């Protein structure tokens, strides 16, 4: 007699049942070149998918697939002039006068609910972005444009106050054209919470499909898109708790793309997974230790210079980024065209640092040089660093160790980013490690952070000579080479004044599933080119074929 077969454990039966249930799906039928589903692992979630009123970067990643600009920046990331820009919603453009720019819209462009995109939409969009009731983040950047009018249904005319190198960039980079017929009945003060922002209708390569708060956003390819049908049919942003969770999702095969892997450990983790490919790109971010010039200790330019001289920033970058970051020659990411290693900046020289401090009366005590005092006061300061940034916390510790060798006592204060922002805005700090993610334009980025009285000038830095050079670079120079010279001058003045120690400008790495071909990651806007990506028919996996 045969021995009875031992039944499988209940847990396995349950698991099998679940798998069987999960298999209750419609047939996976999609074949050919226009299938494909990409799942983006997203740490966070969007606020609203209405471009002028959103303040979250993730929202931009999504809505830039739904809405188009008149033209977009080219691969060179050059923001000066209009030569490197590529047509998008406008077929072509011309300068009628030095301060009058005419865009000719592509007659094939349609809103996803049917009507054509017209010049009236462009004029409406400009009014909305510049309306003080809408609170558009990019409103200040449109200040050089006097008006936008519709000459006819396909011709939009931009009038400027004056000529400046980035006037074309100002017109196109920040404005996503909006459907007037759907938004003109929504009172402007209500745009911040408009229902349209939760079910947007655009003119881009992808249509909005669904958004479940806390879970995911899904877009579907618009097969009638006038610039060419996108190859990948479904784009899904799945929201996860944090970056580590995003990496885990990717490594476990439940996500397809992540724009930034973060610290080296994560990169190594991803590189061990054969189905994932990595894509390095120049980052639009840079990090620095900011001195509050209004604080008594840092009102002394010589002390600031001494602290910068005392930091071996190359060694720090080696330690934190394993060589994947450079010391920036000013407040700039590697992405900017004005990056120039020849810009005058302070070297690493601890002897010079010690001399400078001694000249300013900060004498070494105790023989070992481990502390300095002046009039009984110890040379010490508080350094703010956000709890959420592993990279900046590493830098804080390295700075603390390196400055100790010249007798400076650094007290690290790790605080929540929101509280840090509050203290920065109120000027309630001595020094802080900041990281800034910049637009491609140096004009906006530098002015915003270092211009006199600018919103991001938390360190209260001001120098009339720098201000003049900054204005010359941004508005005074009409030719690119003049602008480049003015930028070099501005950065050299800034470096001499040492309102901050520039720490790192990294190369970042994105990860995308290997089945995806033609991947290009744009440094300023990672997924901007996703409509040109494709998944060859022979590389499709099950989730690519699923019919919704």
């Amino acid at each position, binding site marked *: 007699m045969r021995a009875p077969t031992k039944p499988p454990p209940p847990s396995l039966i349950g698991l099998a049942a679940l798998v069987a249930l999960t298999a209750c799906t419609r047939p996976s039928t999609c074949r050919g070149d226009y299938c494909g589903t990409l*799942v983006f692992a997203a740490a966070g979630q969007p606020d609203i998918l209405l471009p002028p009123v959103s303040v*979250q*970067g993730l929202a931009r990643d999504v809505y830039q697939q739904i809405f188009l600009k008149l033209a977009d920046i080219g691969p060179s990331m050059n923001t000066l002039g209009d030569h490197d820009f590529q047509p998008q919603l406008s077929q072509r453009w011309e300068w009628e006068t030095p301060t009058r720019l005419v865009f000719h819209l592509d007659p094939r462009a349609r809103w996803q609910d049917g009507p054509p995109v017209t010049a009236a939409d462009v004029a409406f969009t400009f009014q909305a972005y510049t309306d003080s009731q809408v609170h558009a983040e990019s409103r200040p950047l449109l200040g050089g444009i006097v008006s936008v009018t519709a000459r006819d249904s396909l011709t939009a005319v931009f009038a400027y106050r004056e000529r400046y190198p980035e006037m074309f960039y100002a017109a196109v980079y920040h404005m996503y054209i909006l459907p007037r017929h759907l938004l003109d009945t929504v009172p402007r003060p209500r745009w911040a919470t408009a229902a349209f922002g939760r079910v947007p209708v655009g003119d881009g390569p992808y249509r909005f499909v669904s958004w479940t708060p806390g879970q995911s956003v899904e877009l579907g390819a618009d097969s009638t898109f006038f610039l060419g049908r996108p190859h990948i049919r479904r784009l899904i942003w799945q*929201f996860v708790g944090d970056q580590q969770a995003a990496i885990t999702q990717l490594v476990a095969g*439940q996500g397809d793309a992540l724009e930034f892997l973060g610290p080296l450990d994560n990169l190594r983790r991803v590189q061990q997974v054969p189905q994932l490919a990595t894509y390095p790109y120049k980052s639009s971010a840079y990090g620095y230790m900011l001195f509050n010039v209004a604080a008594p200790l840092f009102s002394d330019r010589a002390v600031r210079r001494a602290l910068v001289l005392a930091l071996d920033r190359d060694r720090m970058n080696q330690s934190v980024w394993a060589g994947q970051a450079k010391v920036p020659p000013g407040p700039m990411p590697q992405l900017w065209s004005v990056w120039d290693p020849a810009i005058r900046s302070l070297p690493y020289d601890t002897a010079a640092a010690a001399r400078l401090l001694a000249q300013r009366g900060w004498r070494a005590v105790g023989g070992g040089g481990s502390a300095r005092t002046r009039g009984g006061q110890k040379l010490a300061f508080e350094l703010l660093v956000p709890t959420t940034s592993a990279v900046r916390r590493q830098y804080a510790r390295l700075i603390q160790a390196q400055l100790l060798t010249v007798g400076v006592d650094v007290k690290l204060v790790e605080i929540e980013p929101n509280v840090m922002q509050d203290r920065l805005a109120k000027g309630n700090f001595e020094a802080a490690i900041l990281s800034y993610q910049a637009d491609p334009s140096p004009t906006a980025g530098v002015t915003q952070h270092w211009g006199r009285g600018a*919103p991001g000038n938390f360190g209260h830095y001001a120098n009339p000579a720098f201000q003049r050079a900054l204005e010359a670079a941004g508005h005074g120079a009409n030719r690119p080479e003049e602008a480049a010279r003015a930028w070099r001058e501005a950065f050299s003045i800034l470096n001499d004044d040492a309102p901050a120690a520039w720490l790192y400008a990294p190369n970042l790495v994105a990860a995308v599933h290997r089945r995806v071909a033609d991947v290009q990651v744009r440094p300023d806007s990672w997924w901007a080119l996703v409509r040109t990506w494709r998944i060859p028919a022979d590389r499709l996996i099950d989730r690519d074929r699923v019919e919704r």
Partner: protein
Amino acid sequence: MTAWLVRRCAAAIAIVFAVVTLTFLLIHLAPGTPFVPSDERVLDPAVVDGLRRQFGLDRPLGVQYVRYVVALLHGDPGYSFSLRRPIGEVLATTVPNTLLLSGAALAIDFLLGAAIGLYQAARARHRADVVLGNATLFLYSVPTFWLGLVLVLVFGQHLAWFPVGGDRNPVLYPSLSLLGRLGDRAWHLALPALTLGLVGAGGTARFQRAALLEVAGQDFIRTARAKGLHERRIWLVHTLRNALLPLITLFGLALPFLLTGAVLIETVFSWPGMGKLAADAIFTRDYPVVTAAALLASVMVVLGSLVADVLYSVADPRIRLGKGGARA
């Protein structure tokens, strides 16, 4: 009973009102401001001020509070600053998720914990009792987030038996049948519910074992045994029923524990529930969401305590709910 219930409900409303008021004041007085971008950009202060005005944050705190309470009494808890949608809409998606997770975890916690406790008590001081005692002690001592990460690593990443996060498969879910959707939800629920439930079960089992052994030593159990009752009946009917009271207390207390425990677990498993929503809202200074979360949590706590009191009277006929509260 009715008078007692009315008094308890009145007290519950007062507690909830106090919690909402305190939360409202504390979160508004905390340093930091809403509308700070999560990425490393600088928002023009004029834009932040404009948004603050738009959401009424430029008014004095007292005015904001009165407006909030009046709106709340009209059933309008306001708009989320960070999600830019009505709080009701946000809660409609997150509360069911948390209830699902907490409910599943509670079930694992109490069913498994009570079963293990009973098994241990019936075999007190035998090898199985010792082994299970150490196992439950280990589970009870483990931080939930750590256990969650281990389960993600082993069963999610390496073995790929379960998803590493989320509450559903965003690719497949829309195309699944009703049965398939249920299966998909259960599949995603498994690891977070097990994490919360196992840690809870460790404590419950130890508690239950002690309570059972205390009852098992009493005279009426000895009498039952002397009468020749079957051992199973003695444990399941006489001992277990009398040892249920502390377990019911524990059940009432477990509700808020599960809610606070769920904050970490929802983050680890990217489970879109109240805990994760509240944690994110605290970091983004989303005042209406934080206050709504506190409101819901306090309602759950007072309800849990109310349910425990009612269950007390069901489990123990000597307890009557009347004047002066529950009394024996």
